[in-house]
């Protein structure tokens, strides 16, 4: 099912959480809403789910206006950041809940409920936990149960709010790869919220970068990382050197700077203040000789070794790629 967000605005008191946001999500797509905390990404997700009512704008599912449709009737699967599992129910009963609360005429029989719940528990590879209670499970297991519970009502859309936010680093990585594989299996239109750029870039088909209630950029992971549309996207996705120049600023990624021992055309001289070896890469902290500005450069370990420079040496820098943003309101540089 496709999702269309058309001109949605939402205020909480004086705070503007969403400002005229429009977005289209194609059927079967896995989309990440990426932004810092307070950017409005969770609000946007809750508006799509029907948990928040927008001040203005519409939400369309498959072209049908769903803005005024009751939450119970939206057929939306929602996974909460802190799982929101029913703590007094077993895992089985948690997953079965959405089937049990159906009106009698639409409610499947007990054997059918058991069959469906077990199928879902197998899907999330936790069928052996059916009789446990939520507090007996690890965070990663709880999150998968929350997903199974959301899928039990056979939703047309799956929405996940910071699905890996409360997990530790190792489980996060495993779970997000697992989610990607699961999505490739079931092909359900899915939207997830995250503040972790790595997560968004690794898992999503398309990334929506959100900041201060507005969409900064929409694109594939490659597009948003390699061709950031705004200074915000540049700074939010990965490290960047911001170089003041006439009438604006140049944005250069640390790994997109070429380092040579001698001068070349268009290169500038800099002093190596510090060289930090981080596994396979080396990060140089340098200062420009002309302006004294501090810059960061990243280069592969072997390239650094061949260069043979030490702290205090002079190197020559040339950006392989940079982008100039004129001095103006950041939103004027926005590419829709």
């Amino acid at each position, binding site marked *: 099912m496709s999702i269309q967000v058309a001109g949605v605005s939402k205020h909480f008191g004086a705070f503007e959480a969403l400002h005229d946001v429009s977005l289209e999500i194609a059927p079967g797509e896995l989309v990440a809403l990426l932004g810092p905390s307070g950017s409005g990404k969770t609000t946007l997700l809750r508006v799509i789910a029907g948990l928040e009512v927008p001040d203005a704008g519409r939400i369309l599912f498959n072209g049908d206006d769903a803005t005024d449709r009751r939450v*119970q009737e939206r057929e939306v699967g*929602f996974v909460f950041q802190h799982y*929101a599992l*029913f703590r*007094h129910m077993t895992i089985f009963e948690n997953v079965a809940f959405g089937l049990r*609360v159906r009106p009698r005429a639409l409610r499947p029989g007990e054997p059918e409920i058991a069959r469906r719940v077990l199928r879902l528990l197998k899907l999330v590879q936790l069928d052996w936990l059916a009789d446990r209670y939520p507090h007996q499970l690890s965070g990663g297991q709880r999150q998968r149960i929350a997903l199974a519970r959301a899928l039990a009502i056979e939703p047309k859309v799956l929405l996940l709010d910071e699905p890996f936010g409360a997990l530790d680093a190792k489980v996060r990585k495993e779970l997000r790869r697992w989610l990607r594989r699961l999505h490739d299996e079931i092909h359900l239109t899915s939207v997830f919220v995250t503040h972790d750029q790595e997560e968004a870039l690794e898992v999503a088909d398309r990334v929506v970068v959100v900041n201060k209630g507005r969409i900064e950029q929409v694109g594939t992971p490659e597009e948003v990382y390699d061709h950031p549309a705004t200074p915000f996207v540049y700074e939010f996705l990965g490290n960047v050197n911001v170089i003041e120049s006439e009438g604006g600023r140049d944005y250069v990624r640390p790994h997109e700077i070429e380092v040579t021992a001698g001068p070349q055309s268009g290169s500038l001289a800099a002093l190596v203040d510090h060289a930090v070896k981080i596994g396979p890469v080396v990060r140089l902290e340098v200062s420009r000789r002309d302006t004294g500005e501090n810059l960061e450069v990243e280069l592969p370990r072997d390239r650094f070794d061949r260069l043979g420079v030490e702290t205090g040496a002079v190197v020559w820098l040339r950006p392989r790629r940079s982008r100039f943003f004129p001095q103006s309101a950041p939103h004027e540089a926005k590419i829709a």
Partner: protein
Amino acid sequence: MASIASSAPLVRATARRRPVAWVPIVLVGVALAYLSLFLFVPLFAVFFEALRKGWGVYLAAIREPDAWSAVKLTLLAAAIAVPLNLVFGVAAAWAIAKFDFGGKSLLITLIDLPFSVSPVISGLIYVLMFGLQGWFGPWLAEHELKVVFAVPGIVLATVFVTFPFVARELIPLMQAQGREEEEAAVLLGANAWQLLWRVTLPNVKWGLLYGVILCNARAMGEFGAVSVVSGHVRGYTNTLPLHIEILYNEYNFAAAFACASLLALLALVTLVLKTAVESRQAREQRP
């Protein structure tokens, strides 16, 4: 006292310099002496005085018809007050904990109000409303209805003094639990009734029970408020605490303490249940 094991670094640290292992012993001793003077000895005295003249006198005092009718009235007042305040507590906690609206803290303060009003004044306000010289007094007299100095007055006063118990137990509990589980249930298709019975109430059952236990203890033991509205008609408008007062003022100490021992037992049962519920609640609230 030999097994007192101090876990206080305050004590341990000084112990290295000079032997002061007596500090915890003295502190525990003083605390226990204080509690004995004001709690343990009076509690023990109730049962001791009740049985001083033997089991025969004790049982006779309890079986006396006026005592029985006092027990029945006490149970009736609690049986009405507790369910009413239970429903109120759930409704108030639902509105306060699950929604945002203006004046919330004012509302919480108003719900707590009966706790800060003297029991005597709690009774007085109903006399001023429904007594012969009260607002509705003439109208009630005309229709030959009696509220004050009758059972309805006793029930009203009991409802008033036990008003906040369930609500104040549920409000912080439901606020702490947040709204996500209810939102998840709505997203899964649950209607209001299913939400209440399958998600919200099971989640707060121990807190609810805790509030009901305390509410019931106060309902059965209330003295001041009920005393004002009762009129002290033996066998008709006397609750058990009022019956104790009458026996005591008639110097029938053995009977007074016999009836008092029933209420003291109720208090002990209340404390046992309360402790049990607390530990259940603590266990279930592990994340």
